[in-house]
C-alpha cells in the first residue's frame, strides 16, 4: 500500500517515517515523499496505473499549490484519494478542497492519531 506525502518542508519525511514506523515495518505501509506539486505529479506518472493509492498534500507550497495539485490528480487519476494537510484551516481553503474532491482536511499541527486512523482504515 503506497501513500504519497507532499510537503515543501523536507523534515516531514523524517517525521512521518518515525510516526508510522510500526505500520511501515509490519503493516504493509509504504511511504513516498514529494516536496513540490510537480514532483508529486511526476511520481504518480511513473507507472501506469500509479502505485500510489492515497495522497496527503500540504496546501501552502511554492509553485503549484496543494489545491492545484488536488485538481490535477483528481482529473488525471480520479481513483486516487487525496486529503489536504494545511496550517490554514479556514473555511475558504476547506470548501475549495472539498469541492475539488478532497477526502479529508487535516490541519497543522498534525493530529497523528486521526491521521493514523485514516491510514489504518485504508490498510484493513
Amino acid at each position, binding site marked *: 500500500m503506497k501513500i504519497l506525502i507532499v510537503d515543501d518542508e523536507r523534515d516531514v519525511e523524517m*517525521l512521518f517515517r*518515525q510516526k508510522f514506523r510500526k505500520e511501515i515495518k509490519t503493516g504493509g505501509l509504504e511511504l513516498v515523499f514529494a516536496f513540490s506539486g510537480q514532483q508529486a505529479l511526476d511520481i504518480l506518472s511513473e507507472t501506469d496505473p500509479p502505485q500510489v493509492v492515497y495522497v496527503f498534500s500540504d496546501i501552502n507550497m*511554492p509553485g503549484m499549490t496543494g489545491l492545484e495539485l488536488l485538481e490535477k490528480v483528481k482529473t488525471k487519476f480520479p481513483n486516487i484519494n487525496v486529503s489536504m494537510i494545511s496550517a490554514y484551516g479556514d473555511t*475558504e481553503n476547506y470548501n475549495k478542497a472539498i469541492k475539488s474532491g478532497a477526502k479529508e482536511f487535516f490541519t*497543522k499541527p498534525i493530529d497523528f492519531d486521526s491521521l493514523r486512523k485514516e491510514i489504518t482504515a485504508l490498510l484493513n
Partner: protein
Amino acid sequence: MALENLIAFFLLNYLRKNFDKPEPFPNTNRLLIIGMAVAAFLGLLGASDVGPRFLTSLLSLLLMGALIYGILTLPSFSKGRPIVAAILPYVSITFLAEFGQILFPSTYSGVEALFETAEFFAFIWAVAQWWISRRQRKALEVQRLIAEQKERELVLTEKIKAQLEIEVAERTADLTKQKEELEKALTDLKATQEQLILAEKMASLGELTAGIAHEIQNPLNFVNNFSELNHELLDELEQAAEKGDTDEIKEIIQDLKNNEEKIVSHGKRAEGIVKSMLQHSRKESGKKEPTDINKLADEYLRLSYHGLRAKDKSFNATYKTDFDPNLPQLEVVSQDIGRVLLNLINNAFYAVGGKEAKEAAQSRGGEYVPTVTVTTKKLPKKVEIRVIDNGPGIPDEIKDKIFQPFFTTKPTGQGTGLGLSLSYDIVKGHGGELRLQSDLGKGTEFVISLPSI
C-alpha cells in the same frame, strides 16, 4: 560833493540788503535808511550849493568815514569790504581835493591837474575793482550754485538712501519671515518623512504578519512533533532496556539524537524569524555586523512568499534561489538590508502575480509560471544580490522615476511609494549600488551590489 554822497547812498542801500546776522545794531535796517536819507540830503545840498560848502563836505566826510569804518570793523558788514576797497582811493582823493580846494585854494589850483589825474586813476581802480569783484561774485555764485546743487543732490541721495534702507528693512523682514516659514515647513516635512518611513516599515511588516505567523508555526510544529516523537521513543527505549535488546537501544538512541537535532534547528529557525521581525520593526537604525547574506535573503524570501500567500489565497508563484556558497559575510545593518530584500522581493512577487505577465506569456503561446528568483554571487571586492522576476517588465519612462520617493504604480492606498527610494538610500548608505535591468514582456532584475572590503 554829490557823487560821494550818491556812493554813500548806494553803499548804505547795499549794506541794508546784504548785512549778515547777527545785526550789529538793534535797528540796523532803520539806521541804514536814516543814513541813506542823510546821504541823499547831503548829496542834494552839495549839488545845489545851498548850504555852506565846508559844512556839507565835512558832514559828507563824516558819513563816509563812519560808513567805511563800520564796514571795515563790523563782521556783519563784511560784504561791503570789496566795495570799500574799490572806492576808497577815489573817495579819499576827492575828499582831499575838496578840502584842499576849500582850505588852501591857492595851493590847490597849482596841483589841481595832479588831483584830476589821481581821481581818474582812482576811478579806473574803482571800475577795475568793481569788475574784478563782479567776476569773483559770479564765480562764487557759480560755486554756490554748484554747492547748492550738490546739497540738493545730497539731500536727494539721503532721501533715496533712507527710502532704500526702509525697503531693505522691509525686504529683510519679509525674507526672515519666509526663511522661518521655510524652516518650519522643513521641520514638518522631516517629521512627516520620519513618520512615513516608519509607516512604510510597518506596512511592509503588516503585509507579512500572516506569513510570519506561518513561518513560525511551521518550525514550532516540528519542534512539537519531534519532541512528541522523542517522548514515545523514550518509552520504547525503556522497554528495550528491560528486554536488554542492545541493537534496538542503539537504534532508538540514534533516532533520539537525530530528532533532538531537528528540535534545535527548528527552534533556531523560529527564533531567527522572530529576531528579524523585531529588528525590522525597530525604530532606531541598527549597527553594522557580520551578516550571512544567503541566510538573510532566504529568510526574507520565505517571509515575503508566505506573507503574500496568506494575504491573497489566489496568489501563487514559484520561487527559486541560487546562492553562492562561497559568499563572505558582509558588514551590514542586517535589518536594513533585510528591508531592501523584502521590498524588492515583495515587488517581484507583485509583478509576477498580476494579470499582465500571465496574459503576455499566454499570448506568446507559452504557459506562464510566475517565478521570483533570488541569487547571490561573490565578485572581486563585492557581492551581488539579484532579485529576478519574469513579470511584465518596467517601461523605460517609469525606470527613471522608480527610485523617487512617493512614486508608485500600485493603486492608491496600496503602496507608500517609499519602498524603493528607501531601499536605494539604504544600499547607498552601505556604499553599494542598486540598479535595475528590465525587458518589457520578459521581466525585471534588481541588482544590489555591496562592497565586501
